[in-house]
């Protein structure tokens, strides 16, 4: 409750109103498009090499295919990263680790599922030890292939960038 100098009173929580106003302002263009452009071109995946697709993921950051021109820099600590690429098969033991790493990442955060094993099991579909990433994490983009070519990974990054800039991928926990 705020009392004005002229004797009038406003009833309500100023903090909450201010926050609502700020969010409304940020959601309007041009600030929103600026923010989405910033997020799209600084997608840093966390160094979470899941399985054998990691070799092609490493090749994507290598000089021939150079994903860093999209702002895609694999970084070491999850607290500074906003993208997680599930490269390949997710086993039960690794799924626990994936959830812990995902929780540590700050928002907005995105997940890309790479490879046939991350889609629906791939060649290991009938194994007793694997988990489908879609069931435990909110995946934005799927990349088919076994392993997908680095050009496909670059295309997935561009696809995610387009989705972020169109406003379809929010990356917040709702």
């Amino acid at each position, binding site marked *: 409750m705020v009392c004005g100098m002229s004797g009038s009173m406003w009833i309500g929580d100023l903090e909450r109103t201010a926050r609502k106003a700020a969010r409304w302002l940020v959601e309007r263009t041009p600030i929103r498009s600026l923010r989405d452009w910033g997020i799209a071109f600084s997608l840093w995946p966390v160094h979470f090499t899941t399985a054998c697709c990691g070799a092609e993921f490493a090749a994507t950051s290598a000089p021939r295919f150079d994903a860093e021109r999209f702002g895609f820099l694999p970084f070491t600590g999850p607290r500074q990263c906003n993208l997680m690429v599930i490269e390949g098969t997710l*086993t*039960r*033991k690794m799924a626990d680790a994936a959830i812990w790493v995902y929780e540590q990442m700050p928002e907005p955060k995105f997940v890309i599922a790479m490879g046939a094993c991350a889609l*629906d*099991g791939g060649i290991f*579909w*009938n*194994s*007793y*030890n*694997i*988990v*489908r990433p879609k*069931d*435990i994490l909110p995946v934005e983009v799927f990349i088919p292939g076994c392993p997908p070519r680095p050009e496909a990974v670059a295309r997935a990054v561009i696809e995610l960038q387009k989705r972020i800039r169109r406003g379809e991928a929010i990356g917040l926990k709702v």
Partner: protein
Amino acid sequence: MASRSESESQGQERAEAAPSGEAEALLSKVLEGLSPEISTVGSAVSVKVPPDCLKEAAQRLKAAGFDHVKAVTGIDRPDSGEIELVYHVSSYLDPKLSRWIVALRTTLPRDDPETPSLYDVWPSVKYHEMEQREMLGIRFSGHPDPRRLLLPESYKGIPPLRKDFKVKVEGINA
């Protein structure tokens, strides 16, 4: 098919010409008194001993120059109620022995497969025995580190490589 079985026997002959006589003679001399059954099967010299003679046979082979174990395999045979345990051993240093792979095998009863660990004879079996223990349920008494190697801690159920463990065929569950 007639032509296939004909060249299959030719192939077996060719493979048998390889280790054959010399290796079998050496092994009968090294392992005499332990009632071994020696034969050449698929390019390895197979030596079958009764389960209580396994450790003694291993010690004699080690003294003869076979200094490391390449693989430890457990084969589940439910129709005869036994589990066959095969140690593939060879030599690094001795030039004559390193050409041969000796398959030291024994059979254990399926309901209670227990055998002395060969870790004191060949330390190279450590991780192989750990894996066969969790995959088939064979107990290796005297093993220095009997813990789970590959399966997740939360796994409960029959050992996966047994034949009664049927792999799910209709899709994966999280």
